[in-house]
């Protein structure tokens, strides 16, 4: 049976000239990079553009990857900076992603969701919906922590923040997520959690 190559082995092969193997790296990380991009852009089309741009940038800079840290951490850093640049280019005020007004706007934007639809959706739909209502940084931290297999230090490296700041932000993000779930599901939240 063919043994699955690690990220570092694939990178070494690509650097040695087997560039087609980059498709395997993309396949392995595309879902996470796309999800992370979606946390920032809140729009599938933009997220796809960001994710694609991120993989092209990573390919071009692959020779500069030091191979001392995880490839995923390096890739997520590129995703984060690419998303920020993209949002800036789209003339969105990136500072506003940290303020509560945008948060409320996003909340209003999607708050037409009816809790009665609960039966039609499973818990994951609600969870993704609630994450969609969070501020991009909060949503990204939760995604990185739970799905990216990233430690607080690695998330700090990705988002250019201190691990302690990430720890506090993660706690707050989970608290806000709980509030969003309560808002979306009202009494049914107990059934989900």
């Amino acid at each position, binding site marked *: 049976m063919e043994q699955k190559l690690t990220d570092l082995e694939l990178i070494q092969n690509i650097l040695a000239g087997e560039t087609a193997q980059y*498709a395997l790296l993309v396949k392995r990380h*595309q879902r996470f990079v796309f999800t992370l991009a979606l946390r920032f852009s809140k729009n599938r089309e933009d997220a796809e553009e960001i994710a694609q741009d991120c*993989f092209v940038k990573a390919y071009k800079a692959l020779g500069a990857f030091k191979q001392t840290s995880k490839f995923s951490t390096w890739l997520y850093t590129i995703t984060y900076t690419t998303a920020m640049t993209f949002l800036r280019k789209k003339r969105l005020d990136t500072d506003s992603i940290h303020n509560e007004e945008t948060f409320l706007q996003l909340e209003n934007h999607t708050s037409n969701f009816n809790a009665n639809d609960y039966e039609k959706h499973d818990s994951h739909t609600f969870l993704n919906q609630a994450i969609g209502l969070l501020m991009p940084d909060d949503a990204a931290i939760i995604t990185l922590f739970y799905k990216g297999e990233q430690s607080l230090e690695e998330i700090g490296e990705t988002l250019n923040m201190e691990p302690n700041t990430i720890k506090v932000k993660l*706690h707050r993000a989970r608290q806000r997520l709980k509030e969003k779930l309560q808002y979306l599901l009202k009494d049914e939240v107990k059934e989900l959690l």
Partner: protein
Amino acid sequence: MNAIEQQLWEYIDGTLDEAANKAIEEKIASDPEIKAQYEDLLKLNSVLGTLDLDEPSMSFIRNVMESVAAEPAPVALKTKVNSGIIYAIGAFFVLSLLGILGYVFYHAKAGFASFTLPEKFNINLDRYITPTTLYTFLFVDLVIGLIFLDQFLRRKVHK
């Protein structure tokens, strides 16, 4: 968020030290309200662990590969350094040294008026420069040249 909730999250994440860990375990065991709060957070934590990742479009990998096909193949940074730059820097230093030496020789007064070699250094070089020495010298040069040629060709094949 209250302090106890933060401690409970840190306990769940496993980021507390041993003493704090023990303290929170005691609180969970003795206080039913904290226990209920802990169980709620534990459920949320397990639901978060089952989060689904979104899927990009079917053509995503193809699009990426088409975009990167137009880019030059990536190479490790250490081999990326242009050897021409290294040679140019080397040539600059060699020329500078030759210039300085030329300047010094041009302004120096030639001649060894009062210079004589000591008795023990008075070597008769003609005794050593024989046809055998010359052939040995040329043979060693040939071997070194072949080694370099071999390395050069190997590098070309590898590229």
